[in-house]
């Protein structure tokens, strides 16, 4: 009754009943790897929730005060109001620490799941026409996520994150011609400027989340409108999608997944300590702690910086700083290449067709080889970024480890790529382990009151596919 009145009301005002019906019945394929993006989505939702809570307590001010709170080893120390507010949230606000740690764990899982999602899309060729725009938006979301994380963990103004800010400032300084100007403009003058924390705050709670929300909405709208790619089951026509209707099953599964994401992140947030800024102490520009690593999603950049040789160049009586190539140019090339990949591959294959089918990695051996090599490359860079911690645990000399990594950095990706390519070609040729799904499913009521799928042996039902042109129903 109520629902009928709702539908009437909407129809009278928005004329949208068929729109609602069409979209509630929209199907989505439910391969497990297609849900990785949702993990990122729900991590972001939790970031917004916990972040709002934290922003009500954080003081984005560099002004100093004397710490008088309950954490003994810092009592009497001069600290910034920003640092003090983070200590207050951690030790004096009830549920403050669990909110703060959940927020930070959510940030790490947000970037990790975006990366996993990107890898899935890459290996299944889901970025191909017509979905190049989604890919571009996705890469932008990844960059924005990394930016959000970096600005976020720099807000507490502790010794470790402040050191990280110094490194980014130096990277900007190294840009030829305009570097010093850019650095002074965006960092508010010579490092460390009192303008820095307030600016990072605005970036972190307003500009970047707004960008992410906008990009994310466009990303989801595109998936909705263009429909999701899938491993097309044998026997279904081209340009169709087969899966579970959104309402009620897919939606409920998705919401269930959201709660599982929240559960894992909250569990980590209360049980596993992350970023204990009280151990690092307040930021002072004349001290640096060790080990000094950024959050893991910048670990690859840290690796590049640690392994890069100390080359510096003079040009027309000016200096191109050593940092410029490894900290600005190389990441720029990496992300540009990543963003342009759909166009690079389409050009290389001379492929202008529209693709809605997800490929198995073996169907694109060259791409899979390149992807595997890329992953190996990033993993090695991450290892290089943690070289001092690694060396301590492996009981090896860190300088020797560096020398080994410099060689492995090129050898391992090459070998990984070649082996992957070879395996893919072999699998495809042999036709091993094909995807075999029945196109029609009979479901049988079981004793427990639920439904089980019965296997009709892959035989196609005689009924036509609703919605295809042979059916008179309007889409």
């Amino acid at each position, binding site marked *: 009754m109520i629902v009928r009145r709702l539908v009437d009301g909407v129809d009278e005002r928005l004329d949208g009943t068929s729109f609602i019906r069409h979209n509630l019945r929209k199907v989505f*394929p*439910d*391969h*497990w*790897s297609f*849900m*990785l993006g949702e*993990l990122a989505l729900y991590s972001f939702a939790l970031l917004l929730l916990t972040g709002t809570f934290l922003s009500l307590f954080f003081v984005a001010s560099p002004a100093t005060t004397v710490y008088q709170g309950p954490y*003994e*080893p*810092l*009592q*009497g120390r001069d600290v910034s109001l920003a640092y003090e507010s983070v200590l207050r949230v*951690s*030790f004096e606000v009830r549920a403050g*620490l669990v909110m703060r740690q959940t927020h930070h*764990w959510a940030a*790490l*899982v947000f970037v*990790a*799941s975006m990366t*996993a999602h990107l890898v899935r899309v890459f290996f299944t060729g889901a970025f191909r026409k017509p979905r190049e725009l989604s890919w571009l938006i996705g890469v932008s979301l990844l960059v924005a996520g990394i930016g959000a994380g970096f600005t976020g963990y720099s807000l507490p103004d502790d*010794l*470790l994150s402040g050191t990280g800010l110094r490194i980014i400032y130096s990277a900007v300084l190294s840009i030829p011609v305009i570097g010093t100007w850019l650095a002074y403009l965006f960092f508010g003058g010579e490092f460390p400027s009192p303008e820095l924390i307030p600016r990072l705050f605005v970036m972190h709670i307003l500009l970047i989340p707004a960008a992410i929300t906008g990009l994310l909405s466009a990303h989801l709208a595109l998936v909705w409108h263009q429909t999701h790619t899938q*491993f097309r089951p044998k026997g279904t026509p081209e340009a169709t999608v087969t899966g579970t209707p959104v309402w009620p099953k897919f939606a409920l599964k998705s919401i*269930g*997944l959201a709660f*599982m*994401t929240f559960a*894992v992140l909250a569990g*980590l947030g209360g*049980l*596993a*300590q992350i*970023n*204990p800024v*009280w*151990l*690092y*102490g307040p930021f002072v520009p004349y*001290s*640096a*702690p*060790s*080990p000094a*690593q*950024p*959050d*893991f999603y910048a*670990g690859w950049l840290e690796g590049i910086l640690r392994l890069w040789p100390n080359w510096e160049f003079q040009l027309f009586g000016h200096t191109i700083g050593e940092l410029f190539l490894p900290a600005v140019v190389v990441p720029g090339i990496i992300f540009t290449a990543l963003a342009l990949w759909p166009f690079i591959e389409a050009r290389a294959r001379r492929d202008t067709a529209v693709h809605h089918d997800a490929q198995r990695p073996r169907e694109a051996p060259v791409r899979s080889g390149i992807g595997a090599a890329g992953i190996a490359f990033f993993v090695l860079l*991450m290892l290089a970024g*943690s*070289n001092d*911690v690694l*060396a*301590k645990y492996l009981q090896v*000399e860190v*300088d020797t480890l560096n020398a080994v990594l410099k060689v492995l950095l090129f050898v391992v990706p090459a070998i990984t790529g070649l082996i992957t390519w070879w395996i893919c070609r072999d699998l495809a040729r042999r036709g091993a382990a094909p*995807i*075999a799904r029945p196109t029609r499913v009979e479901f049988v009521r079981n004793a427990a009151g639920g439904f089980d799928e019965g296997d009709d042996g892959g035989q196609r039902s005689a009924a036509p596919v609703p919605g295809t042109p042979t059916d008179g129903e309007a889409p």
Partner: protein
Amino acid sequence: MAGRANAEARVLSKVLRIGLAVAILGQIAWSFRPEPSSAQPELEAEGRALYEANCSTCHALDAGGTVNGPSLQQVGPAAVDFMLRTGRMPLANPNDQPERGEPKFSPDEIDALIAYVASIAPGGPPIPTVDVSAGDLALGSETFLDNCAGCHGAGASGDSVGGGQIAPSLYPADPREIGEAVRIGPGVMPKFGPETIDQRQLDSLAAYLEWLHDNGDEGGLQLGRVGAVAEGLVAVVVGLGILILVLRLTGAKR
């Protein structure tokens, strides 16, 4: 004259008896003589024996050093105590890095060696007195972060410092060892004299490190106190890992 000879014999035996009594009493009295300051010569003698058997091969009989081991001149009792009590010395192979281990000598033997080395190589930092109860946690953490965290880690769990060296975790060290290490600068560690880290700072440093043993982990599992590396590993393996498991349990595999 038998009478005179008898009298002489009686006197002589009397003298002998008195002399014997004196000698016996004297021996007894002598054994109760007061010991000169903790039997230093004995301690040094014991130390000398230990030194010649265990240390002289690398550090030379006169503590002047050889190609295998540095000179011990001016190292001070603090260094000897530190190296022996933490089991870093004696070093089986001179090419090895000295590492903490089970001490090879008993506390008495260590005292003996300290005494002996002091006698052949006088000078150097004495064993510092470290009073943890007189320390101030805030001063300790500030001193630690300004001077020690760069090598030993903000969480005091140690780190590689290059050249094959590792600045060790500070958790196994007791306050006396901390004081000694600060004053002598073992291995590649620099030394900090009383002008750079004074007694109050030293007490505070030891107090803070002791406090770190059981405190500082309000957030939960400390993950080795190495920072972002461990956190990233946990986020990917545990966080994303569990969630991917959930995905595989609820999604289709084909």
